[in-house]
């Protein structure tokens, strides 16, 4: 399961500002006093917005407005420490409230059907924009920078003219360029506000970055410390699994995600894990975790993951199920699981309700499992049949 990095609004706005795209004046604060000071310095009504990597902040009460430093202090105080969309609010953005004459929705993202990036633009900005009538996508190239006239053309089609058109056109062209340069998966300005004085400002920004491009985006990522910290929401269990995974390059543990049940799982690969979880949940079994084992993991890696999963307080048993594997050595996984179970002080026969990995070295793997009387299955038993068999122990 791939998770892109979501950039906090304030850090996203700082990036935009650095590229010449205007944003409201403001600052991130961590206390009511700081909030009041920022409002006093701005000297005008302000918006107070929680800084969490999630959308729908307005609807969930994470955005307030204040007319005075005193009101700002109260709003900041009320929001700090609140839990919104499972995030604890530690930072809020205090920024000037805009005098908005018109609002636009502008976004760049990938279209999986066209297989190009597209720019989406509509005058029906706001928080229900996806419910609005169909938004025409403007595809653009990743091979060459988009030309300036492309942005002007979109601005004209949005029915702007004069200075407003020129500024908007150049802003749209910049967005397409930054989307590619930053390796973004989403760059959304919603709304892009036209102020009563004729200037455009990005009132809110949603930016998601491609984790797979992190190797070449070091400079950008260094400017986003708050986003990086908030993006890592892993539990201790997930962190420990990741540590085991990275300690040995052979094989991958995928991402271990905790679930509320009592049945520990070593499952894989990616497509099979989805299939196995569905089959388990349909059968009324209660998984304690999700994972996607792949490649050819070492005995040590499997053994440590086995111990980690069995150590979780709720976990009673550990099922081991994979699709017919191409590169995984069945005997190494079998040995790792048995060693892990024994080192956890458990009997393999009792702790492992099912072991099903068909593939290379399967005879050797089966021999190990037979020695410990573990109930094992081969390719002739399909994934859902293994799960059915687990419901009836004998």
């Amino acid at each position, binding site marked *: 399961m791939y998770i892109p990095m979501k950039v906090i609004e304030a850090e996203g706005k700082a990036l935009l500002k650095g590229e010449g795209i205007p944003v409201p004046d403001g600052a991130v604060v961590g206390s009511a006093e700081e909030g009041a000071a920022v409002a006093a310095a701005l000297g005008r009504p302000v918006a107070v917005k929680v800084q969490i990597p999630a959308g729908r902040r307005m609807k969930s009460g994470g955005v307030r407005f204040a007319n005075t430093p005193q009101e700002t202090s109260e709003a900041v105080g009320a929001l700090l420490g609140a839990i919104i969309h499972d995030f604890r609010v530690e930072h809020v953005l205090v920024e000037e409230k805009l005098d908005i004459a018109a609002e636009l*929705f502008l976004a760049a993202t990938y279209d999986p059907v066209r297989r190009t990036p597209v720019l989406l633009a509509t005058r029906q900005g706001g928080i229900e924009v996806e419910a609005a009538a169909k938004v025409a996508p403007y595809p653009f190239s990743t091979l060459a920078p988009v030309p300036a006239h492309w942005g002007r053309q979109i601005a004209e089609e949005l029915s702007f003219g004069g200075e407003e058109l020129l500024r908007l056109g150049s802003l749209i062209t910049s967005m397409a360029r930054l989307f590619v340069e930053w390796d973004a998966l989403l760059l959304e300005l919603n709304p892009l506000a036209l102020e009563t004085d004729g200037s455009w400002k990005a009132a809110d920004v949603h930016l998601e970055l491609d984790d797979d491009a992190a190797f070449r985006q070091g400079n950008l990522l260094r400017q986003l410390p708050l986003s990086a910290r908030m993006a890592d929401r892993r539990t201790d269990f997930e962190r420990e699994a990741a540590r085991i995974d990275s300690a040995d390059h052979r094989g991958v543990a995928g991402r271990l995600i905790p679930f509320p049940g009592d049945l520990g799982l070593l499952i894989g690969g990616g497509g*099979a894990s989805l299939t196995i979880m569905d089959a388990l949940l349909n059968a009324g079994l209660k998984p304690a975790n999700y994972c996607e084992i792949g490649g050819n993991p070492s005995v040590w890696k499997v053994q440590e993951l086995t111990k980690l999963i069995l150590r979780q307080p709720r976990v009673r048993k550990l099922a081991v199920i994979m699709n017919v594997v191409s590169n995984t050595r069945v005997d190494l996984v079998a040995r790792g699981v048995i060693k892990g179970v024994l080192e956890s002080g458990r009997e393999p026969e009792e702790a492992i309700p099912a072991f099903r990995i068909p593939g290379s070295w399967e005879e050797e793997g089966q021999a190990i499992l037979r020695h410990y009387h573990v109930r094992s299955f081969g390719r002739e038993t399909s994934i859902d049949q293994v799960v059915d068999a687990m419901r009836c122990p004998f």
Partner: protein
Amino acid sequence: MSILADRETGVLIQGITGREAATFTLESLRYGTRIVAGVTPGKGGQQVHGVPVFDTVAAALRGRPCTATIISVPAPFVRDAAWEALASGLRLLVIVTERIPRGDVAAILERAREQGARVIGPNSLGIISPGQARVGMCGGAVEAIRKAYTVGPVGVMSRSGGMMTEISSLLTQAGIGQSTCVSVGGDPLVGSTFLDLLPLYEADPATKALVLFCEPGGSMEETLAQALKERHSRLHVVAFVAGHFTDRNQGVRFGHAGAIVEGTQGSPAGKVAALIGAGVVVAEKLSQIPHLLRMGL
């Protein structure tokens, strides 16, 4: 018969000196794939299991005409390797590397469209036409390939390479062989979708039916369903959709652009509904697939 690759297809391996590539090169040769050359910049003059290695694609192709390449180089170098293959006129690129930046994938696919070349993947385990050739690494070692894949009338398209072998093995156990199996790749952007490959299967006299392995996300299933609704296909299509549990475990969506581009598409429940609406038989359990196929064969 088959699609995309057969025993005549000449194949180049970019990144052949890598550990994984060297292994699948050996096993593919043993299976019968016609591998003509390998490329690793800086390692020209070496050999990998008897296959000559060159520094560039152009040098590899001199006197060794071929049409297909497998790209198995580290993610940061895939874009350049693919562009090099396209610049040399290769027609079929199978990209097995995973975790390639999405911008690079878009740039590869855009140039491939300009040149009229076909891309399978990225994050694909490859293509196999049983009994003829394997272009990629699906199935593992030659003994394992022969156990899982057999010759027959069913095309398999899968978003998961591992599940392609699982399903083919299931069919083989039931006495149903395969014409060509394609691991289309697990990424949101892939060179060839189910719909892109459908006409090839329809034009292949050996293929009588198709099995699809579907996953959450994207709109590959929905676009195929839409096309099947609009025109008659001679192929009997059976699909399995994995990941229903993700419908119940969705996070709060960030931003609106995804919802505009994909609309209501992407959820397993929606994919099942679209496929059924298009006359596709959807298997609730994996083990039902052979039976559901037989009903249409």
